[in-house]
């Protein structure tokens, strides 16, 4: 009976796996990118919204950062599996590697809406994303497209371009 109760407790609880080192670092990078972008003076609402598509682990890591950090003076809100309507309000959208196929559609929806689009995979900055993570052996690197950032109505710091792999 005692064991049965414990098993029931396990089964009724929803769960997510343990955090991986790589996701933790990507989340740290995403937060760091927000410090290297000039956001419009008038932001869309009173919080900085990060949308995550297709990676609940990443959403969890970003939520951990949101507990203590702000972007400018704004608290951070993380929206996991953001719906098309919610995307409107995002300042930054992370598209996971498994959802790369959605990139053209996503760019269409966010065109000119001052949203930083970050992807996870090679050559994606040339296909419209502002920044894309790439794994080079043990090293985590990122591609950056200044043109795509400006196209979205944003400006990036020179450090961002200097430290990433500039694709244009």
């Amino acid at each position: 009976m005692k064991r049965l109760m414990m098993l029931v407790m396990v089964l009724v609880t929803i769960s997510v796996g343990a955090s991986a080192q790589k996701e933790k670092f990507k989340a740290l990078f995403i937060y760091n990118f927000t410090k290297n972008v000039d956001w419009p003076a008038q932001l869309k609402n009173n919080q900085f919204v990060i949308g995550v598509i297709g990676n609940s682990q990443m959403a969890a890591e970003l939520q951990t950062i949101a507990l203590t950090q702000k972007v400018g003076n704004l608290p951070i809100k993380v929206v996991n599996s953001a719906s098309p309507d919610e995307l409107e309000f995002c300042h930054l959208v992370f598209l996971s590697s498994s959802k790369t196929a959605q990139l053209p559609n996503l760019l269409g929806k966010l065109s000119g809406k001052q949203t930083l689009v970050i992807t996870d995979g090679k050559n994606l900055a040339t296909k419209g994303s502002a920044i894309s993570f790439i794994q080079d052996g043990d090293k985590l690197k990122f591609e950056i497209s200044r043109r795509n950032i400006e196209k979205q109505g944003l400006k990036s710091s020179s450090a961002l371009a200097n430290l990433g792999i500039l694709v244009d």
Partner: protein
Amino acid sequence: MTINSFLSRRWLTALAFSASCLVAVNAQEATSTVSEMTSEQIQQLSYNDLLQLSLEDLITVANKFGMSADEMLEYFLNKDIVAASKKAEKSMESPLSSTVISKEQIERSGVTNIPEALRLAPGVIVREKTPGNYDVHVRGYDNIPSNNILTYSENMLTLLMIDNRPVYSYAFGGTFWETLPIEVSDVERIEIIRGPSSALYGPNAVSGAINIITKKATSKSVAVSFDNALGNNNTNIANIASTFGIGNKLLARVSGNYQWNGRFQNDFFTFYDSRYHTQDFLEITKDKDGMYLKENASDIEPNPRRAGEKFGGNVALYYPVNDKVNFELAAGAQKSAVLTSMLGNRMVPFSIRESQTQYIDFKANAGGLQAQVNYMAGDQEYEKMVKGFHIDLQSFNANLEYDYKIQNLSLRPGVSYQQASYDDSKYVNTAIKEGYLNGKCVLSTVAAFMRADYTAFDKLRLVGAVRWDKYNKPDVTHMTYQFITSYKINDNHLVRGVYSRANRGPFMTDTYSDFTWQRIPGAFNILYLGNENLKLPVMDMIEFGYRVKPVKYIQADFEVFQTKTKDYSWFMPQSIAIKLSESGKPMMEGIIGYDNFDMTTTQIGFSGNIQIAVNKNLTMNVFGNIQKTELDHFYARKASEILEEMVGKLQTPDQPVNNEVKDADFVDQTHKSTPSYYGGGSVNYIFKEKWNINTSFYYYGKQTFAMTFMDTEIPAKTLVNAKVSYNFAKENKVFVNVRNLLNDDSNEFAFADQIGTKFFAGVQLNF
């Protein structure tokens, strides 16, 4: 005892506690010179540090953090330790004699509870009294004074803490391990400091201090872990925990644990004929005074096959207000019943001890300011078979420290207040002094302390700590100190030295005992009397240590030490007289009281610990202690002999007989009640990333336990253990675990149970 009853009031109380909050600050300066830092230094960066880095530095860190094989080895060999000097540092750098047991070591080794986990560290003597119930001593000093009551077998000289919250018992001293609300599944790591360190931690950190750091939630995502092991003798061990976020910022971890440990036998040792007998025999047999050996035992202790049963539940909340401000709140409850020997009744030394307690612990950090306040309450019955040892207890601790840095000098002043209040009046007839206290008794300490830590040229480190404790009983102030120096010859060699003094705190029985034991009702009463002016035991130590990494795969740690301890307290027959009872009949009345003797113990010892990480998949360690303890000016007479002698001399009512302490009764001798060598080791092998194979061993030399009724020899023993687990999906595992593979079923403690081979099979699930 059922889960339902446990989950009811206490558990809800613990959950309700968790609703409150406060504020704290945690300031850590991010460094701007990451590119110049070693991998080791980078790994010391906190998560907050990482958040504050520039993009360039973050890239550097990410690349160094790639967890290359070498860095994995470094992580295994050189763990973080906080307890050693109250700030996080690598164990290679720790200036004190210290060891960290990680949660990975605990899980892989298959230890089934916290005291058994201490067998993974050097300098700790761990013996199993009955299955699942342990005696734990740091560097020995057990059974001093010998030839006395069984209580002196307890470790009264080591401070145990959970997240810096003291959890030792104020009753007789010692730690009731089964009353810890947490289990191994709740442990993040265990930090062990060997040697006197009450200047850093307060009273009772005499032979050492053990700090158990518990797991906390680190992310808002929901996660659940569950493990269950079923073993022979109907043993059942189960743990469950869940971490999750609440609202925007609150992080929570909720956990529960349950253990039922079965015995290998159903009989008990008795002093009646120095043999083991079943409960049936003990219930119907009378001693020479016509008293039953264990009257009504089957009503009071109905299951002679049960070694122990325990439940625990905990809630830990973490609330970061921002990157500078955070606070923590933990609360929990436990209920336990174990067969153990702390008091030992007159004829049968092992009996049931029951406990149910609740606690709440609050922590805050603010710009280097750290505050901690906690409260524990409950009731404990130390020995079910003897009336008079059931009490309500409360303890309260408050601690405030401030960390202040001026370049290479770090200062840490602080103040502390501790109070324990024990009351047995609810359970006994105080008019006839049926309880050992017969009312409410309070022990308290007010303390101030200062710690200074100075590093010169990145190589020479000087640490000084001093603490003043003002006790209410005895009405004295004790100053304790630690002077520590370490010199880092280079990254691979460190030499260190320690000179320190620590003292034990007062306990309830020593101080306040006021118990009338009706030894033979109507014919012979014995009065147990405390002493409010007892001197408190004090230990001085000098120690030298050397740490070396001869190659990057090996870290070794060696230490030699000498300690001198004085002002032990003694529970001794003082006088006997003939008095008139209430009915007017003459009866004997003896007085046994607490007093100090001018004895000094000197211990010299050597300890070594070698850790080897052959590669990421094969790690091993081996450690051991050799030591010798000498008693100088030891009062060697057995308490029972003194009492008998005084009874023999008693002739007339108007001439009481006092115990005459003669010079000839004092001897110098080698103390044989603690093993002169002990240690252990382990090998862990990860095969194809799915299998984990762990073998470990633990050994100790023979000892002679001497108490008032008799001496008994504990033979040397080597325990070999093995655990094999298979990772069948993500972090989900099945395992088999065998403890004491060689099936040496000798008893590990005086008058205790046989401890044979334990087999377990189980699952460990993570969602």
